[in-house]
């Protein structure tokens, strides 16, 4: 039971001077600790994953036709940045959608203004608050036609459900499980959910999500956000954007 070690062993007393025999050891331990912290800090930081090419910008304006379902979209008719016929996803500032402001403007010609986020083919505009961000174009001669949806068949895709804004570059990284609750919060706030497919469909990797009837699907996907999932549904083209009308019951975690 005698665990006190041999007689010559130095005995450290906190309030007394550290015994000389123990000092080299303690200095070594201190140095090891400093080196450990510096080294781990560097490696942990230098090996962080690439958050992707998404990036935000400031101050863009566009005119186009707004559609409300499944999530507010704009078919651009006039803009300096975006080509005519381009389909823009719309959200509010931060973790807000624009459903409240857009509901009365379905099918109308509107002017939008806000900060763009862009990643590959994904374009989203984060609208300014109030009428500055979204307003009806008064006295327009005629509202241009919105292109008819083109069905592309029923597909089974593997990919990640993201909030379009963070994935687009509003947050870097805006994907993955560490960001999951944040993505859910965006989606609950009304930001359009985007399906990022591991393989392109009709040349597109990003698909706007909708339910089977073409309505919003946010509540049904919240438990499958930010991880790789398999899901089935109808793909259709609206303008230059693909919409994935999923069957939420078919959602499952990719093995």
């Amino acid at each position: 039971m005698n665990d006190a070690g041999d007689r010559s062993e130095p005995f450290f007393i906190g309030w007394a001077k550290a015994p000389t025999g123990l000092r080299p050891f303690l200095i070594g331990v201190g140095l090891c600790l400093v080196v450990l912290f510096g080294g781990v800090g560097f490696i942990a930081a230098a090996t962080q994953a690439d958050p992707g090419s998404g990036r935000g910008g400031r101050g863009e304006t566009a005119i186009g036709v707004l559609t409300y379902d499944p999530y507010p979209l704009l078919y651009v008719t006039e803009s300096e940045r975006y080509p005519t016929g381009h389909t823009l996803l719309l959200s509010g500032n931060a973790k807000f959608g624009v459903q409240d402001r857009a509901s009365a403007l379905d099918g109308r010609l509107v002017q939008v203004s806000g900060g763009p986020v862009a990643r590959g083919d994904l374009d989203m505009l984060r609208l300014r608050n109030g009428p500055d961000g979204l307003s009806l174009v008064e006295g327009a001669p005629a509202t241009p036609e919105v292109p008819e949806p083109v069905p592309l068949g029923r597909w089974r895709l593997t990919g990640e459900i993201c909030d379009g804004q963070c994935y687009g570059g509003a947050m870097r990284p805006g994907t993955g499980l560490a960001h999951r609750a944040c993505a859910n919060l965006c989606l609950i706030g009304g930001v359009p959910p985007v399906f990022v497919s591991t393989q392109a469909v009709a040349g597109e990797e990003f698909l706007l999500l909708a339910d089977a009837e073409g309505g919003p699907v946010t509540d049904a996907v919240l438990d499958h956000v930010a991880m790789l999932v398999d899901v089935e549904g109808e793909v259709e083209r609206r303008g230059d954007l693909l919409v994935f009308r999923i069957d939420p019951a078919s959602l499952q975690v990719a093995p």
Partner: protein
Amino acid sequence: MSVKYVPVQWNPNKYVYDAVLLASVVLYIFVFLELGTAAADVTQPINGAIVRMRAFGSCAFLMLSVILAIGPLARLDRRFLPLLYNRRHFGVMTFAVALTHAVYVLGWYFAFSPTDPLVALLTANTAYGQVLGFPFEVLGIAALLVLAILAATSHDFWLSFLSPPLWKALHLLIYPAYAAAVAHVALGYLQDATNPAFALLFGGAVLTVGALHLAAWLRAPAEPTTADDWVMAGDAGDIPDGRAIVVRISPTERAAVFRNGRTLSAVSNACAHQNGPLGEGRIVYGCITCPWHGFQYRPEDGCSPAPFTEKVPTYDLKLEGRTVLVRRTAHPPGTRVEPTPLPEDVA
């Protein structure tokens, strides 16, 4: 130890200890934010707030791992005992770093939404039935709450007020808290880290902590118990001068039999301050000195010398030949017991 409590007890050793700690933490955060992140291979820069939450989160986890390694290290090699001496300052600093992590998370991931950040934190992800995608934030909250309780009860007042056994029991919460922190990282950041370096660092840290505890446990000797009134402690000749042998009185109680020159005295093995192992200490300036924080007691009555007021229980001793026996029933702390002279034939 102090006669009157002061906010923070410092002495030259603690200054050095805290300086090394602070230097390590500042270095970690600086290297992570300034050097490491600049060296990361990224198309677009990672958000500053996210880099900061990663820096403080990973630093707190590393600190917690080191803290948990100190206990078993000191049991495996007594030269590590000085690290135990000021571990409470280490713990308080860890809480501060972990709290900074939490504040960044709350102010970034859970801000800017229509929902109150605290409510958002608890409602945004409710997939408690999933392993992948589990709301790992709650595991972090649980660990942080424990760190808060432990940091808030680290003053010596709490040791004395709660009593060392209850204080220790409360502070054993650090074990489930560490498990929660491990799961917090494993189900969160580890799932996203594409570079294997993080998994290796993380796995290395947690497995080291686990292995050290296992090793210290395997090294702990098995202790026999008897139901007799007198418990055999060992051969009087085996006790070096100024040292002790430890004897198990009951599963929770141990006595330390000290040799002080030509006499023997038995006191509780548990120091009055934090129940440190007095029997692993020594007699310094005529007083039994605890190896953890240097609290001192007179061998003959278990009282700290004035002006200090700590007391430990004492035990009756008797000799049968050279064999030392300790009476099972302890005297109340501070009871004087006449020291037993060593047998003539012991050198």
